[in-house]
């Protein structure tokens, strides 16, 4: 926002710019509130968890490579599928989405930072510590084993007696808190921080997608917060929400989980839609076809996304009325999604299309995602779903939309914005190798799973008998999984090689950039815009280019820029909540050691953790952050 610098701070003495304490090295990363650095933190953390989830997938596929395989036992297999799903969705792809949002959104809307830099940092650290807590389960008595949906009674104490599911409930609770904070931050950022002239209907599609995604996060995550609290209370405090013997009802968990869970899949896919809507116009040298219908379709998908949750529960026995209702509402989603697919195609139609790596991923996304969408409509038919339910057909469907949709979208976005984030272009040759190995591997892995499902192979089985026509298709699927792994490795090699080259990417490395992020250096200075730009239309930069201008018209004179101070408090708050969660989880355990029993059974560890968290909150409240200023002379120097 143009006026952050001039905003009223009467309690604040006017200080020269250099009073801010600068951290370096690790301390810099732990204390940063700069959205561009937080984006990188999200990317590395997300990449780490994505790697863990990917290894879990490879282990699953090795176990299923042949019938009656003994590579893994059933319990380990259950833990692996649970952790694969949970890790990939909550800790793998969501942080990478947040990485791109953090890296791009403030730049795209012409802002110097997000609305709440402190909360931005807090959101990251709570996510990270939640994810670490969840993954600690591997070394602390066993991972959760009830599937990523944690259906009761499987996830109840009776069937899952280790602490695995506790790690799931409490880990996801903490990570979910971070996501909710991030969502609110992006909503406020997009509402209030847009550059002068950028009305809502002049926002880039990725900004729209982020806005709508954040709104879904806001309304969906509180539901899972409650669901996880109920399950935690059932397991640790012996409550009876889902315990039939005490009057509870397991179906209630399914409802609450999916009231969150279905919007969650739109939280995943809408950002991908946004990325594709940026990449395709850029590399077609055409404005996005049907911009306003794209906006409308995004809003409609978000709304309908909350109205369809029970299609995951057709076989639960909700009755014909509910099943019919949810069938119809689910099929309705095909309409706005179809609008999007055709808009992308019409954008490319007649454009000067360049198949750079990002555009290859975007072009690969369209047919692949459409296949996932079509099987979605098949699954939406309740009578047919009775056949498909809990088979590999469902597994194929959701991997087509999540990997073939979201992950291809993320690859497109990462290759597209990598020079903006790091100042270095990824190798185009290696990028194309990544694309071809990954997408061929993907279709090998999951296309055959449609047929496995139709032939009757159930999902989540740890092995199968020979001579059911499953053998060959499972082998093909496993080979495909390894090929996807090769694609990932090529991507990592590309990142590594690129990081050793000089950071020489120009402002507009793709040369056809349309939006504001391409008007500033790569990577941008910490204040992003020396002068807030004046936006004169959709695709603000392209409009200036067409008018013959080389740069944006500034909306303000060069002036002193107010920056938020770095702080360690978000990190401390997250450490505290991590300790509190761990303490609560073990509060009813029996320890051989009397000191441990004393600390855990009296909730002392929990209290200590909460004390750190609330103490840090208090510090934040008591000591005002006046921030610091970058003066015009410094700006000229750079």
């Amino acid at each position, binding site marked *: 926002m143009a006026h952050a610098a001039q905003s009223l701070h*009467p309690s604040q003495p006017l200080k020269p710019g250099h009073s801010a304490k600068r951290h370096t090295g690790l301390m810099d990363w732990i204390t940063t509130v700069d959205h561009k650095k937080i984006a990188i933190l999200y990317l590395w953390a997300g990449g780490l968890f994505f790697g863990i989830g990917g290894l879990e997938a490879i282990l699953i596929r090795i176990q299923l490579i042949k019938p009656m395989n003994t590579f893994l036992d059933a319990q380990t297999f259950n833990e692996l599928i649970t952790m694969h799903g949970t890790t990939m969705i909550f800790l793998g792809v969501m942080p990478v989405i947040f990485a791109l949002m953090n890296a791009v959104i403030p730049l795209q809307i012409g802002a110097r930072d997000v609305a709440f830099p402190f909360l931005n940092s807090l959101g990251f650290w709570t996510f990270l510590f939640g994810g670490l807590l969840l993954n600690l389960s591997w070394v602390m008595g066993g991972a959760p084993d009830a599937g990523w949906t944690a259906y009761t009674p499987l996830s109840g104490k009776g069937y899952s007696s280790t602490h695995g599911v506790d790690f799931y409930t409490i880990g996801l609770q903490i990570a979910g808190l971070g996501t909710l904070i991030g969502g609110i931050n992006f909503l406020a950022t997009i509402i209030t921080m847009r550059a002068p002239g950028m009305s809502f209907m002049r926002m880039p599609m990725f900004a729209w997608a982020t806005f709508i995604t954040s709104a879904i996060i806001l309304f969906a995550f509180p539901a899972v917060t409650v669901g996880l609290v109920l399950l935690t209370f059932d397991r640790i405090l012996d409550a*009876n929400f889902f315990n039939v013997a005490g009057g509870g009802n397991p179906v209630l968990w399914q409802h609450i989980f999916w009231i969150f869970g279905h919007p969650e899949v739109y939280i995943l896919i809408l950002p991908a839609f946004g990325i594709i809507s940026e990449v395709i116009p850029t590399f077609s040298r055409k404005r996005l076809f049907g911009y306003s219908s794209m906006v409308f379709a995004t809003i409609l998908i978000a709304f309908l996304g909350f109205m369809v949750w029970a299609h995951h529960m057709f076989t639960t026995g909700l009755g014909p009325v509910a099943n019919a209702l949810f069938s119809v509402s689910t099929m309705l989603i095909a309409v706005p999604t179809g609008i999007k697919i055709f808009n992308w195609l019409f954008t490319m139609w007649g454009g000067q299309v360049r198949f750079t790596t990002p555009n290859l991923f975007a072009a690969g996304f369209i047919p692949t995602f459409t296949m996932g969408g079509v099987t979605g409509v098949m699954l939406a038919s309740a009578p047919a779903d009775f056949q498909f339910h809990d088979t590999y057909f469902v597994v194929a469907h959701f991997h087509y939309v999540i990997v073939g949709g979201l992950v291809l979208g993320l690859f497109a976005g990462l290759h597209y914005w990598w020079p903006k984030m790091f100042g270095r272009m990824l190798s185009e040759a290696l990028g194309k190798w990544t694309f071809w190995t990954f997408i061929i591997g993907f279709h090998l892995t999951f296309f055959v799973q449609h047929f496995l499902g139709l032939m009757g192979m159930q999902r989540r089985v740890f092995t199968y008998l020979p001579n059911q026509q499953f053998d060959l298709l499972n082998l093909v699927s496993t080979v495909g999984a390894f090929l996807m792994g090769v694609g990932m490795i090529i991507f990592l090699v590309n990142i590594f090689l690129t990081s050793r080259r000089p950071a020489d990417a120009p402002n507009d490395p793709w040369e056809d950039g349309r939006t504001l992020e391409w008007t500033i250096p790569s990577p941008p200075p910490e204040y992003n815009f020396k002068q807030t730009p004046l936006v004169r239309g959709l695709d603000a930069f392209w409009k200036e280019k067409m008018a013959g201008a080389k740069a944006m018209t500034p909306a303000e004179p060069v002036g002193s820029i107010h920056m938020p101070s770095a702080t360690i408090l978000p990190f401390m708050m997250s450490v505290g909540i991590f300790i509190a969660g761990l303490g609560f989880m073990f509060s009813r355990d029996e320890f051989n050691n009397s000191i441990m029993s004393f600390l855990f059974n009296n909730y002392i560890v929990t209290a200590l953790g909460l004390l750190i968290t609330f103490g840090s909150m208090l510090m934040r409240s008591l000591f005002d952050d006046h921030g610091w200023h970058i003066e015009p002379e410094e700006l000229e120097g750079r």
Partner: protein
Amino acid sequence: MTTAHAEAEGGTLPHEPEKATLEGRNKVLAFWLFLGGEAVLFGTLFATFLALRNQTNEGPSAAELFHLPLVALATLLLLVSSLTSVFAIQAMHRGNIAQLRNWLLVTVLLGLGFLILEIYEFSVYIRHEEFGMTTSAFSSAFYTLVGFHGAHVAFGIMWIAVLIGQLMHKGLTVVTAPKIYVSAMYWHFIDVVWVFIFTVVYLLGKVG
């Protein structure tokens, strides 16, 4: 504090100091967004309660358990505290720090009274009615819904108390004003949730 007072009285603060800065406006807006999320949180808790309201597992039922005069008193305390927090914000808009502090204090004390009543109620249920967290699905849902609300009240009390301290220490500025305004929004929201709790949990529980 005297300087802050002079600042407010002298009119250097705008009429709505909570909206004077971008930071302040962001804070108010984001808090509204947060309350939208809170509505879903409590909505899901209400849904859980409604689904399990008749699952008494041979334990006490709502009609047997609830004692309306106590609930009415708690309701009155919270309702009055919501009014006093309106008065606090009005005093803030007039720039009158002393009145602002007093109304916030009254709000906190009324909230404390509500919390004590709730703790008393829970302890009676647990000790005399054999109605604990583990008794039935109904009891679990009751304690979780009403307890979540109680936890919100407790957090609000601590929050506003801290803000009173800051008000006395730092005065009324464009930094403290948004905090106070937002805490008042929170307090009103707690009262709104309580309106649904006394209606859905207690009164409709009595009706059966």
